[in-house]
Structures are given as structure tokens and as C-alpha cells.
């Protein structure tokens, strides 16, 4: 039950308006939780429609994946957009200062050890989770400061596929993409991205949980402030 509540918290914090920023990202914290521990595995060939989570709706929709695509193919395509492993890690180490603030803002409720961007890159470079690789490609593009067309590729491969988008990693990928669009001076694209994220959340009936968990968050905030 505690794990379910934690997973609910982890999901809802991504949507929680109690988080602080003017561009959609939240107050920095010092926490990061591996999604593999609390999130659902993103394997579209086996949708996670677990009915055991009686208090949490299925995070991954049972909508079948796009025909002609499987997660391996998507992962391979995303990985092909990245440079070699050594160059990738070197780039992330050099230009990844933004990652800490971003990860802290999307992980306000799960205070665990922080994973630097280079370590995240090393861990997810061979991942079979398309959404994780989407985050990696977006993070690389943001770190390298050019090749902004890669954001569109991540958008079309991950966020346009409901199976991938409606996951914890998918939503985190969406937030990263929207923030990146804002940073490169494309607020219109960012607006579409935020709107899509809100639509996914509303479609998954998360809004009801947001208001409930917001009260929980406020209670915790009040407790921490007193």
C-alpha cells in the first residue's frame, strides 16, 4: 500500500501545481527515485493494465501500440540519434548542470540519492524503455545546444504514442520537452506540449487524484513549515 501511495505521489507530483516555477517545472529538491523501482515497465507489447492497483488507475493504457512499430525498433531509432557512448557521457558531464534542477523539480516527493546526468546516460543508453530513451535524447539535445529537430523526433516517437506517453517516464519526457521548447524560444510548441500532458492526465482521470493528493501535499507542507 505504501508503495502504491508512493507511486501515486510520484506520478501526481509531475502534475501537481504546488510545484513552483514560471515555466512549468517545480521547486528543486534533492531527490530522485529510479523509475524502475516504482514505475511501470514500458513494454507496449504487454500493456500494464494491472487491476491489483485498486486505488490507482492503470497508468499505461491498454491501447495497442502503433502498427509496424515495437519498443525495440523505437529504442533503436532513438539510440541511433545519439553519438557514441563515450562522446555522449562526455557531453552530459560537461553540459549537464541543468539536469539537477530539472530532476529535483520532477521528484519532489521521493527524496533519494540524486543521479547525475552522466550516470543517467550511462544507465539508460542500453535501456529497452522507449520513454527513458526519449528523455535521454531530449537531455542530450538540451545539453549540446543544437540539433533541435531531435525534439520533434522524440515527440513523434514517444509522446505521440499514447502507450509510451501515458507512463511516468513518458510524462517526464513530456515535461522535459515542453521546458526545452520554452528555453529555445518556441512557447507555442511548449503550449501544445503542456496541453497534451494535461489532456493525458485528464483522460486518465488523474485530476481527481490531484486534488486529493494536493490536500495531502498541503498537509505535509504545513507540517514541514510548522
Amino acid at each position, binding site marked *: 500500500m505504501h508503495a502504491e501511495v508512493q507511486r501515486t505521489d510520484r506520478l501526481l507530483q*509531475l*502534475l*501537481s*501545481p*504546488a*510545484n*513552483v*516555477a*514560471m*515555466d*512549468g*517545472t*517545480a*521547486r*528543486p529538491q534533492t531527490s530522485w527515485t529510479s523509475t524502475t523501482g516504482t514505475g511501470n515497465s514500458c513494454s507496449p507489447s504487454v500493456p500494464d493494465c494491472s487491476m491489483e492497483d485498486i486505488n490507482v488507475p492503470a497508468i499505461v493504457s491498454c491501447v495497442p501500440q502503433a502498427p509496424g512499430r515495437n519498443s525495440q525498433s523505437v529504442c533503436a531509432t532513438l539510440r541511433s540519434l545519439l553519438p557514441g557512448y563515450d562522446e555522449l557521457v562526455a557531453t552530459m558531464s560537461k553540459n549537464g*548542470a541543468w539536469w*539537477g*534542477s530539472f530532476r529535483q523539480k520532477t521528484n519532489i516527493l521521493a527524496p533519494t540519492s540524486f543521479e547525475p546526468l552522466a550516470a543517467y546516460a550511462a544507465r539508460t543508453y542500453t535501456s529497452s524503455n522507449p520513454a527513458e530513451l526519449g528523455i535521454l535524447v531530449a537531455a542530450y539535445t538540451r545539453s549540446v545546444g543544437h540539433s533541435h*529537430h531531435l525534439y*520533434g*523526433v522524440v515527440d*513523434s516517437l514517444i509522446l505521440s504514442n499514447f502507450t509510451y506517453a501515458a507512463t511516468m517516464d513518458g*510524462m517526464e519526457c*513530456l*515535461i522535459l520537452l*515542453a*521546458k526545452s521548447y*520554452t*528555453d*529555445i*524560444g*518556441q*512557447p*507555442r*510548441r*511548449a*503550449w501544445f*506540449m*503542456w*496541453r497534451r*500532458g*494535461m*489532456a493525458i*492526465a485528464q483522460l486518465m482521470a488523474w*485530476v481527481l487524484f490531484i*486534488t486529493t493528493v*494536493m*490536500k495531502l501535499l*498541503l498537509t505535509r*507542507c*504545513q507540517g514541514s*513549515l510548522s
Partner: protein
Amino acid sequence: MYHGDRFASMLLGLPYAFNDAHFGATMHATVENSKGSPHHFTLRCAFIAGKVIDRNIVPDKPSLAKAIDLDEQMEAIAASMPEDWWDLPRELPNPASDLDNLTERLLQQYYFFHVRIYIHLPFMTKSAPTSYNISKFQCMESCRQLLKRYNILRTKIQGADLYECKTSDFVAFTATVALMIGLYGSSSKPSIQSSDKNLITAIVDIFFQDTRKKKCKLLSQCQKTIHFLRLLNNETQEMRIPYFGTVVRRPTQSFLGTTGGETHNHTPSVQTSQEATTSSIPAIPHDPFDSYSLDYFPNTTINPPLGSLHFGPNLFPNEQSQFDPMMVDIDQDWSLFLELDGVQIGGS
């Protein structure tokens, strides 16, 4: 996502996605009565931003009384934070964690003043009566405070800015223009303080340096627009700015009398971002504040009609889709937004 949507919706003049009423009365009461919480501070600002969006969406004449009411709510939000929370540092802190905290605090304040500017922006128009001066004063003061924070956020540390975001650059640009409209408006003018001139010059310098080093099209257009608005010219010129409105520069009668109606066009040579790499900031002739006036006309439509958009280069060549006019944005040529019946940036 809530905050991102709220920020982008206010900037672009679009409806927001989430109705704050759905939080419920209990949540609102808790947030409204909170003290000293940065979380709640920004959330309350977002609530006000939602009300600003509600007002701007409706094509009715905005109510000064409602704007003052919103401003009083912003004042209460400001008062909910400790006084030292608002202090601007004289120098940047040393540990990286303190730097992150400072950046976060400045961004929260940046958002606060952004919302406050938008509360009062509709009352900066040419036709605004003197009773609107209180709103104009508040708008100008919010612009100053936002620009001071922008100045700090763009401080370079080991070659990199403390915070870099082109959309925030655009917000700072619109705040600069709004401040200039307040200073050089055709209604009664207060004396222009040197602090305001220095602040505007500092912002323009930031835009110019980035244009020179990074060849940034957005900042190039921002810098040229401000430069163009400050020209001494006996012609009436019109500048249209995406998501902001139209600014009309007119020479004053005293300036026309001084020049005897002769054409004294001090238009500098048009510089592209490439040409600007080796030159300094183009010198502005002495511009006494009574030489020209700036008048502001808000956008009357939420978005420019599709028919006014022009096709341009495909910025996403790897995509099979053709150029998408719906995705024209401020990082591209602003003429793609605007009907080409006025003077373009930098002169014809």
C-alpha cells in the same frame, strides 16, 4: 504541467487547460492563507494569471477596478513572503547550491512581476485617461523589477549565464518595450530617470552581446526593435510585436519644430546578426524625451489569423511534413507572424 500551461497561455493569449475552481474551496483557503511558502507563492500567482487570462480572452474593454483588485491580491501575495526574500543580491553567492536557490527565487519573482505587468498592460494604451495612471505606474514599476531580476539571471558564470531561456528573454524584451511606452507615452510624461535609461541600455546590451556571439535571431529582432523605437526620426513608424501588440512611434511637435520639417533620418544601417559580429552597439543620437512619443495598441485578436502567416524555411527538415504555419514562433522571423503593411524591423 499546470504552471507551464498557465505561463504559456498568458504569454500567448490562449485559454488555460485547468480550471482553478476544481481545486475546491478548502484548497484555495489553505493556499491563500499560507505564509512564507514559495510553493504557495507561485501557485497564488498562477491563480491570478488565470484571472488575467479570463479577462484577456473576452474581447470587452478591460475594467480598471478589476485590475486594481487583482493588483491588491498580488500585493497580498508579495506580503506573504518575508521582506528579505525580495532582496536582490549585490554579488552572486559562491556555493553552487546557493546559486541554485538564488536562481529559483529570482525566477519565482520574475513570474510574479510578469503576471503583474500583464494585469496592467491593457491600460498602457494611447487612449487611456489620466485615471489609468495608477495602473500605468504599477506596470512600469513591475517592468523595472522584472528587468532587474533578468539582469542578474543573465550574469555570466564561467562563460555561461546563470539562467538562459529565450522565452524569458522575450518576456524581458516586452517588459522593456512596456517601460519605454510608459516613459515615452503621448500622455503626460514624468521626467525620465537616468536609472531607467541605464536599465534599458543594460538590457539592450545583453541582447546585442548574445546576438553577436550566438547569432540569436530572437534577440537580434528584440535588439533591433528597441533600437528602432529609440531612433530620432520625423516619420511615424509602426512596430508590431508578436503576442504583445503594436507600438507606434511619432515625432513630437517640438521635435518637428526644431528640425523645421526637414527629413533627418538617423536610421542606422541595417545589420544582420552576422554583420553585427564585429561592430559595437550602433550609437543612438541624443534622444531628449520630448522628441518622440510611443503609443501602444494591444492585439485585438488572440492569435494572428492564419491568412497573415507566410511560408518560410522548413526548420525541421527531417520531418516529412511541410512547413507548418501553426508552429511559427518567436524564435523565427517575426514577419512570418505579421502582416507586411508596416515598416519591418530595421527599416525597409
